[in-house]
């Protein structure tokens, strides 16, 4: 058992939660999909309860998991936090040791592992992983890599505080970038490739794991990778091509380093040292 999963939170369902999950599951084309939608719906409802307990607003209806057609075609369990982003709620069946990441990951800021065991009258929130902590190509995350779910509050706070700061600075940067310059066009493409919340999540990871002297280099590298990894193997290839360094790519990287450093300096003013939850 990991440190994170020892500090899980139990969420008990209400009767109407199970009824709604059954309703969503009932229109699925086969038993396997029925089970998937049933668990995804309950996972989203459990995380919704927890996130609201953290005094954050949620919008169940805005999620793809709540759309009758989208949930039929994709394995989605997203919960929308208006103005912040989405949390993916990943069901974990008793005995599983990892969470499978969904194929649709746009605008996800975190992934929460939701532990199921029969009877489905309650679940355990086992922990979470911030979006910036793994590469786009990652398909599964071991439960041993999860952070305690109570630390989600700190994480959401940092993202919420970071979004307006990053937005102002990025708008300034983007307005200064010329469209006809190949370097500046590439920089723009990198910055517009993810939502502001995702960029803040990625920079949060850099902030937590790097020395201040490395913010430019590490932050620039992270921005370059997200710019390249818009999905699939093409993302990896382009990511590698950045490291092979043509003159244009070198200039793009240098520019991204400066932007990342500026962003991290601004963000560090509001993030400070932070405060890890004391888990007794």
């Amino acid at each position, binding site marked *: 058992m990991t440190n994170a999963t020892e500090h899980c939170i*139990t969420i*008990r369902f209400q009767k109407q939660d199970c009824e709604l999950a059954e309703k969503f599951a009932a229109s699925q084309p086969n038993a396997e999909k029925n089970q998937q939608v049933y668990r995804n719906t309950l996972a989203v409802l459990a995380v919704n309860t927890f996130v609201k307990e953290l*005094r954050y607003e949620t919008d169940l209806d805005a999620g793809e998991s709540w759309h009758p*057609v989208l949930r039929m075609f994709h394995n989605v369990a997203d919960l929308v936090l208006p103005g912040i982003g989405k949390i993916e709620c990943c069901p974990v069946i008793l005995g599983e040791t990892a969470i499978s990441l969904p194929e649709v990951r746009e605008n996800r800021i975190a992934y929460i592992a939701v532990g199921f065991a029969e009877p489905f009258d309650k679940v355990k929130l086992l922990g979470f992983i911030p979006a910036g902590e793994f590469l786009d190509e990652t398909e599964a995350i071991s439960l041993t890599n999860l952070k305690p779910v109570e630390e989600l*509050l700190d994480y959401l706070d940092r993202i919420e505080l970071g979004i307006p700061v990053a937005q102002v600075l990025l708008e300034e940067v983007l307005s200064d970038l010329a469209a006809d310059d190949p370097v500046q066009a590439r920089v723009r493409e990198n910055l517009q*490739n993810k939502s502001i919340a995702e960029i803040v999540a990625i920079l949060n990871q850099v902030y937590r794991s790097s020395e201040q002297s490395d913010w430019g280099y590490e932050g620039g590298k992270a921005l370059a990778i997200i710019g390249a990894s818009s999905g699939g193997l093409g993302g990896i290839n382009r990511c590698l091509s950045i490291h092979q360094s043509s003159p244009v790519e070198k200039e793009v990287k240098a520019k991204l380093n400066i932007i990342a450093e500026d962003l991290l300096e601004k963000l560090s003013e509001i993030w*400070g040292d932070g*405060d890890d939850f004391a888990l007794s």
Partner: protein
Amino acid sequence: MTRHDAPVEPLPGLVPVAASFNLWLHWELKPISLTLFFLARYSDIFSGIIELSRRDSNVPVNTELDLKVKSLILQALAEPEYSQRLRKIQSLLDLIDYLPKSKTKERIDMGLQTYYDDALQMTVRYMTRNLDKFSENYDIDISNTTPANVCQCLVRWYNLNIKADCIDVRRRHRNIRFVHLDEPTSEENATTKEEIIPDPRPEPPIDYVEQQERFLQLKAYLEADPEQRLSNCCTRKYPICNCWELIKRRILKSPPQTFQQIKKDLDIPLDNITRLWYNKCVPLLAEIAQQIGYEIEPRRLQQKEDEE
């Protein structure tokens, strides 16, 4: 009450007793004797004071404070009246500062200290209203859990709530949107416990043949767009950016394409793609599903006006 981290002075009477051990002939028994002596006198010497071993051991030891905390929680749970329960919770929170690792005003993040006093009022009310959730969240039966473990869980619950409330108060001060949780939760409206706990899930009586047929019908419709409803639903400026194109890329393709990939492929501004998707395609999908026989809530069918 003495704080758990307050220095503990040895009682004056202990010094000569300890010194007398040095006069014993059987010196090899001294450590054992000393331990036994301390164990026997422990509660007398440190009455009302947190035990010394907790900070050095992972095994929680019940203390008088732990017992008091557990007792107050049980008393609060037994109070059906809000005002009576509130009083018990206030007494409980008077003690929480003395519990190890609790987020007191001094121990919470510097940036949140300003909001602590206001937040505390909200936390008291929240904990009073949601005390039943405490044992649920930490999956403990308070009566049958050791006082030390109850205290540990209480500190986790308190820390989470006081911090959430500090952030909420700061959000209000900054005039950012906030969620106010001072209202009773829907769970409180449930009349009995039986209403909350669902029955074990029965096997759903679902006709999968029928569901499969309907699903394939929907899929075939989306693949063929027989009435050109999907392809005709497009942005004025970019006819290539139409609902059928987006549905093929975002629903029928596995894995689905991201908006960024579609933007690159079609060379169309991202904004145009996402606006069309959310305002037109998503409601149109629901409309088609309803036409095929799925039960769809009316609000899903409303298309938003596109400014273009």
